[in-house]
Structures are given as structure tokens and as C-alpha cells.
């Protein structure tokens, strides 16, 4: 295991150079002694080479898109084009301060204005706010729009948000954060929203309904019209979790089929890098009468000049970010959309769907695939139940064995409505050969369950570390380096 950077400390080593301070004032003359720190912070003292070697060593222990296939369902781990990284590294963006005067930020505002319009056009909504910086942040913002909508009408009794049991965990968490109550309804045998259960739970207190479409089983929820009718009949709003937008670009516009609000995950659909967890970007789109509730500012345009538009400040839900959201992530998405164009975006979804169905078909003999008789969209959910029942192999074991085969594991144990779930999303950027290699590996693993189950139970073995003990990490909580050597 790599030593921590703290263990590489050598007193007096320097990783920086400084210009001399040409102002001759003493610190003690600036700040009263009472406010000065007693002991120095214990940051390491290392050279630049130490630092570069250290992080290279850490980098070698990671899996990443350019190394191999990442079939993570719901996460859309597509390739992140290099041109984005080159183009966003521009002083005209990086050295731009959010408090600059409007006439010095026209280029930035033009990009944001155009991105608002492009995202609105792609999804069929009226206006888009680029302020939320992550999908869950978008959910929270969208739910706040719902809150403002009902509050403006004096409908304070609208306290409940309904969502299906297949929803992402962020949905119920966002509902609570936004001050609503969660009402969970069942999915039917086809993996779709159970309309009867929905009708049974809708009442005058229903503020809205959240739905992922395609849903987390990778199936298109075809009853959107009926759902919209039910929810709109009690003046509720329908929110679409846009995590799976990659499946329907140029095919379906959510804003035109009954959805009132949606968030986009630019770090999924529009190819901005995941960065080991972020930064992403989670803009929201809304129908026309909800525009006035969006966060301030929006980006406006008047006579060829772009401006920060605070004109709806009185009705706005407020701000959800210190400034204008993850600007630099938004620029990457802008570049990506410009490079794909309408035809390219549609092709993205087509190939994402073909890739997913191709894998599903080939694996259907080897794994239980609950909805294999319905063509999936951009992803599908397989289950490890056969392996568990016949051989005592858990889906976790299968996932760890997949790591040994040189692939990242699928999303596992989600959605919760499928037992031993493995959610597989190949994305459009993967080639047929890669998919074939993955399919072969999955078939081999199914075979190993029969012949050598220990291979799975002991997996992974070909990874930088063996199976990691999660429980110990909680039981003996150690969340910072405390000076004892970790070089075991």
C-alpha cells in the first residue's frame, strides 16, 4: 500500500517557490496577537517531485474510463472528449471572476445563454437554470419550484410528493430536504408505475410526482400521459429525474409529453468527466409558467448584450449556489452539444440503446433478466438470483470477480425492486469488441459459479488490493492520519 503523503514528510523540504514580499510590513502589526494561531497546521513538507510521484502512485491504483469499460447502470460513464479539457483551460474562463462587470464577461454569458436554450430545445422545456451543480442539487431545486408553485397559489396543504419504489435514493432524500413528505408507491409486474397504486395515493395534498424515464430498470414508462392526467387533476406537478436522458435524445422530448420539470446530468448525458465523484452539473428545465420560480439569476439577452437576469427575483425560489453554478462544467457540455449537433445527439441515444440490448440479449441465457422480453432503453437490470440460489454466490461476489476480468463492476443492489440487481449501462461510446469482451467475461463468470465458486468468493485477486473490509472502516473509525505508520 502507498504511504500517505504525511509519511513522506521531511522537515524543510519545499514544493513551492515564492516571489519576495516587496511590502515591508510585519504581520504582528496587522493582526492582534489574540487572533493568531497557536500551533502551525501539520501539513506535510515535501518536494514537487515527491508530490508528483505520490499522486502517480495513487493514480495507478484507480480504474478509469480510459483504462476500460465501465458498465455502471444509471451513471452513464461515457468517454469524456479531450478537446473539452483543452478548451476549458483558457485564461478567458479560468481567470474570470463572478463579480466582474457584465461588459467584461460577455463571452461567458453567451455560452451560458446558448446552453440554456440548447438544453431547453433538446428536452422541450421553456427555460433552463444552470445553477444546480449536481443531479441531486437539481432535484432539490426542482422540488423547490414545486413548493413555490403551490405557495404562490396559497395551497399550503400540498405537502406530499409521490415517487415509485424504483426511484434513485436521491429522490426521497431531496423530497425531505425540500420540506415535503415522501409517499412511495409500487411498481407493477412490468416494472412500470402501478397506476392503480398511484390513484390510491393521490389526494388533494399531493404536491407532485417524481419519475425517472426511462426508469431505473431501463424501461420507458409509457403511461406518462395517464400519470400526468392523474397528477394534474389534483394540481400536482410532475418532475422527471433526467438521469437517463442519454436514452431519448432526439427521440422523446420530456417537456412535450407531460413532464413539468426535469433535471439534466451534464456529467452523464453530455460527457463531462465524473472526476472521481464530481464536479458535475445538474441544470433544471421547466414549463413556461414555472419559469418565474427558477433561481436567480438566469442569463438574459437584450439587443446583442448578455446580462444576469434578476427580473423575476420577487417570485424566484432564491439561490442554490454562491454564483452561477459549475460554469466550467457547463462549458464542456456546450462544446459537446456543439460537436454532436442534432444528428449526433440522436445517434448517441440510438447507439446507447443498441449497445444495451445487444448485451442483454447475449447474457439472457446466463443470468436472470427479469424484463428480458421487453426491449430495454440505454440500460437493463440483470439479477444474480440464479447464481445465489444454486451456488450461494452473491451479486457482490460477481461484481468483485468482474473487477478481476479487467472491467469495472455494474451498479449493484439497485434498483431495490430487483433482488441481487446488476444494472448494466454500456453507453454509446463503447465498441462492439469491448461489449463482446465483457459478454465473454460475464459468461465465464456464470461458468465459474458452477465450477469454481471460490474464485468468486475470494475475488478480487488481480486488483491493487484484495476485497476491502467495509465494516471495519465503520467499526474502527479512522478518518484522518494520526501519525502512526500505515505502511503495513
Amino acid at each position, binding site marked *: 500500500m502507498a504511504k500517505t503523503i504525511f509519511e513522506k514528510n521531511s522537515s524543510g523540504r519545499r514544493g513551492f517557490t515564492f516571489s519576495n514580499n516587496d511590502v515591508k510590513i510585519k504581520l504582528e502589526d496587522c493582526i492582534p496577537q489574540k487572533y493568531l494561531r497557536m500551533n502551525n497546521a501539520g501539513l506535510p513538507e515535501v518536494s514537487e517531485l515527491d508530490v508528483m510521484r505520490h499522486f502517480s502512485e495513487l493514480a495507478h*491504483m484507480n480504474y478509469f474510463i480510459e483504462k476500460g469499460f465501465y458498465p455502471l447502470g444509471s451513471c452513464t460513464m461515457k468517454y469524456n472528449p479531450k478537446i473539452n479539457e483543452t478548451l476549458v483551460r483558457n485564461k478567458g474562463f479560468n481567470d474570470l471572476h463572478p463579480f466582474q462587470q457584465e461588459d467584461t464577461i460577455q463571452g461567458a454569458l453567451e455560452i451560458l445563454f446558448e446552453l440554456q436554450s440548447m438544453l431547453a430545445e433538446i428536452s422541450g422545456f421553456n427555460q433552463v437554470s444552470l445553477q444546480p451543480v449536481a443531479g441531486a442539487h437539481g432535484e432539490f431545486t426542482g422540488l423547490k419550484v414545486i413548493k413555490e408553485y403551490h405557495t404562490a397559489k396559497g395551497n399550503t396543504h400540498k405537502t406530499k410528493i409521490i415517487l415509485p419504489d424504483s426511484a434513485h435514493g436521491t429522490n426521497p432524500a431531496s423530497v425531505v430536504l425540500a420540506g415535503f413528505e415522501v409517499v412511495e408507491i409500487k411498481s407493477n409486474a412490468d416494472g412500470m408505475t402501478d397506476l392503480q397504486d398511484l390513484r390510491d395515493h393521490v389526494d388533494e395534498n399531493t404536491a407532485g410526482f417524481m419519475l425517472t424515464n426511462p426508469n431505473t430498470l431501463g424501461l420507458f414508462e409509457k403511461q406518462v400521459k395517464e400519470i400526468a392526467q392523474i397528477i394534474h387533476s389534483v394540481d400536482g406537478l410532475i418532475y422527471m429525474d433526467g438521469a437517463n436522458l442519454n436514452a431519448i435524445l432526439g427521440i422523446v422530448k420530456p417537456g412535450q409529453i407531460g413532464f413539468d420539470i426535469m433535471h439534466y446530468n451534464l456529467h452523464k448525458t453530455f460527457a463531462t468527466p465524473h472526476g472521481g465523484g464530481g464536479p458535475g452539473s445538474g441544470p433544471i428545465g421547466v414549463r413556461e409558467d414555472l419559469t418565474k420560480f427558477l433561481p436567480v439569476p438566469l442569463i438574459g439577452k437584450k439587443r446583442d448584450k448578455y446580462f444576469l437576469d434578476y427580473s423575476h427575483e420577487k417570485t424566484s425560489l432564491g439561490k442554490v449556489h454562491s454564483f452561477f453554478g459549475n460554469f466550467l462544467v457547463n462549458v464542456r457540455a456546450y462544446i459537446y452539444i456543439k460537436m454532436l*449537433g442534432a444528428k449526433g445527439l440522436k445517434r448517441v441515444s440510438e447507439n446507447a440503446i443498441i449497445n444495451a440490448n445487444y448485451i442483454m440479449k447475449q447474457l439472457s441465457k446466463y443470468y436472470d433478466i427479469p424484463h428480458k422480453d421487453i426491449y430495454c432503453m440505454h440500460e437493463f437490470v440483470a439479477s444474480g438470483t440464479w447464481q445465489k440460489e444454486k451456488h450461494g454466490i452473491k451479486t457482490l461476489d460477481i461484481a468483485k470477480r468482474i473487477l478481476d476480468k479487467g472491467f469495472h463492476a455494474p451498479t449493484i443492489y439497485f434498483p431495490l425492486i430487483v433482488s441481487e440487481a446488476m444494472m448494466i449501462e454500456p453507453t454509446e461510446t463503447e465498441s462492439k469488441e469491448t461489449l463482446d469482451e465483457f459478454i465473454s467475461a460475464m459468461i465465464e463468470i456464470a461458468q465459474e459459479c458452477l465450477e469454481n465458486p471460490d474464485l468468486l468468493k475470494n475475488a478480487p485477486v488481480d486488483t491493487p488490493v484484495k476485497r476491502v473490509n467495509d465494516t471495519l472502516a465503520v467499526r474502527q473509525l479512522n478518518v*484522518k492520519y494520526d501519525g502512526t505508520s500505515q505502511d503495513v
Partner: protein
Amino acid sequence: MPFISNTDPERREMLKAIGVEKFEDLLVNIPLEFLQNKEISLEPAYSELEISRKISKLAGMNISSSQANAFLGGGVYDHFIPAAVEHVILKPEFHSAYTPYQAEVSQGTLQYIYEYQTMICDLTGMEISNAGMYDGASAAAEAILMTVRKTKKNKVIICGSINPNYLEVIKTYTEGIGIEISVIPATSGFVDIQELNQEIDDETACVLLQTPNFFGNIEDAFAVEKITHTAKNALFIVCVDPISLAILNAPVEYRADIVVGEGQSLGNAQNFGGPLFGFLATSLKLSRTMPGRIVGATEDAAGKRCYALTLQAREQHIRRAKATSNICSNQALCNLAATVYMALMGREGLIEIAKQCTTKAHYLAAAITKIEGYKMAFKSPFFKEFAIQTPIKTEKIISQLKEKNIFPGIDLKPFGHENTLLIAVTEKKRKTDLDLLVSALQEVQNG
């Protein structure tokens, strides 16, 4: 098509293997009326060369602070970033990796997060740090929610010297969920201790203080702490500038319960205000109410030291509606930049930066206040940012100085302070840059 591997013949082969003739056959489950028969209306696709030209042109329409002599702060600062930071965060191993849920193939990410947490704990003196929030504003908002959960009280006191943008975000997060926000005035540039004393009571969940505050002033956190902890179980949240912690009191010294702040200053560019990242650190006894990801050290099956996400039972993917926060995607790569930055700077480097910021800011303040009509807006010790009362409308100064390529600071008029200019100074400023601002202000005065 760009970034799509499969060719048309490959597509056909795959469709055949699936058992359909054409792509459209895969869409049978989508109601016909939902299907778009019109193409999305976008410009024709750009080539890589064309988009490069377009982006260069758009970026060139901005006047960046590196082309000007800029003194802008207010939450985002122009600190120097060593080249090595960029080289590390551009490594695809970090850049194109997913959240480290599969620990066996994510040790690189997990270990740097552990190191990041350690560094934040070192700076703040706290026992546990999470691995990042969206920004300083949402970190402050989520810290408030922690205290409401922990104390089961709903009154929140915010010292009014906080960054007004943070206050806006906090209001969005706390509105409509039964939390009562009370903002203590700070008309003198720092919080009114008397008012705070009157406002606090046993219904108080927390007091939130920013120091150095929005105006750059160093608040008396010791005094605010004392008052906070007179109320039963009330918790003390401070929002701090991480660079300041190299020289100013570690929050543990004034017994803060939760420490939050904006981390951009640590190795991340200004980027027009995003991505930023928030940090949040606290004591172990509050760990189970924390939002966000946390990494812990553990062992693998061979008994070797390694790392894993820990305390996940707080998070949305496990606890759903009962989670401590909805946060999922965060700002991980910005945390990495901060980790590399702090490693390069080390304890001495960070102290040097903080000293240079402070002394240069004080030199500039002294020089500006020698100009007739200009004086300090507030009487309080300050760190790297200070407010100046201007003899004429601040916006007039800003627009005149823009002609000379100087961005003198932020006009505080929208935030309730007429004729007040908020000036930020980082270590990047040379004496000549400071003197240029002074002489430019003199000319505005004279003209």
C-alpha cells in the same frame, strides 16, 4: 459521428444479433405520439477545429482578471496555483474515474480523500472532515441542518456579516421546513455582540459566524462562542477562509462545533464562480449527522491497510428519505486540487501565502486611506480583504478604472452599503500593482 465507436455495418450486425431489422424496432414500447418526428433544432455539428475557434473567440470576448489589475474577492479569490496541481488533476486516472464505490479499484481516489480529510482536520483542528460539498454556501446550509437535527431545535442565528450570497442559499435550504432564521445586524462591519446576546435562547440550534467575514474583518469568535454556548446545547458553526487558517486561530481554539468554508482558494481557479467546493469538519460526536462522503482506513482480505467509504448509513443511497443529506455527485476533483495544493505548499508555504496576503492588503489599505475622502468603512482587524468608504459613487470608480484595466473591487451598494468598495488582495499582487490602484484612485478623486 464524434465519440461513437460503432460503424453502420457494426450497428447492423448488432441489430441482427438482437433480432430486429432496424433501430426503430427497439422503440416499440414508446407510445407513437411521444416520438419526435422533427430533428432537434441546433446548429450543424462543429468539427474539433471549428469549435476550437469558436471557444477561443468567446473566451477572448471576456476580459479576465489576468489581463487586468483585479482586486475582486467576495468568496472567490485569485491565488497562485502551481503548475503541478493541473498536471495531477488532468491524470485520467482521477479525471475520468467514477465515485469510489468499488474500493478495490479506487484506492487512488480513496487515499487522496483520506489525505484531504486529514489536511482539513489539520487546518481546522477538528476530528472529522467530509470529502466535499458543492460550495461554501451549501456547506454552511447543510451544517445548519445538522444542528437542527442534532438539537431538535429550530431557531437558527446567523451573524449578519456573512457573505450575502451564502445567506441567500441558506434561506433557500431552510425555508418551508419549520426553521426560524434570525439574522443579527452587522452594520459596523462585524456582528453586534449585544444583539446576539439578546437574541440567543434555549430554543437556539446554532449560531453561524463567518470569520474573516464578508467584509474581510476578523470577528471575535471567542466572544461569539461564549455567548453561543450559554444556550442549552446550541452549537457554534464557523465559516472560514482556509488560507487564513495558516495564521489565524484554528477553530478548535475557540471551540467551534462545526467548521465550514469555501475551498476554492486552495488550488482551484476562479472559473467564473464554479466549480467551487465546500468543506465541512466537525467533532466525532457529530459525525453521524454529517452530510457527504467520508473515507476511512481499513484492511483488505489479506490484512493490508487500505481505504473505503465509511459511515455510508448516513447517505441517500442507503437511507433514502432518512439520509442526512441528498448529496451524491460532489466536487471531488476540486478536493484533489486542494490536496495537491496543500501538499505542495506545506505548512510553511501556506503561512507565507497568508502573510503576504495580509501584509499587502494592509499596505494597500493604508495607502488608500491617505487619499483625501477615502477611509476605512469599518474599524476592525482584517485579513486579506477590506472595505473602503469612497467619496463618490463606487460604481463610478469601478467604471472609470475599468478603462485603465483595473478592477478595483466589489461595489457593496447592492448589499446595503452605499459608497463602499470591497477590495481583496492576494499574494499575487506586487507592490507596483497596489501602487497603480492607489494612483488610479487618486486620479478619480482629482478628476
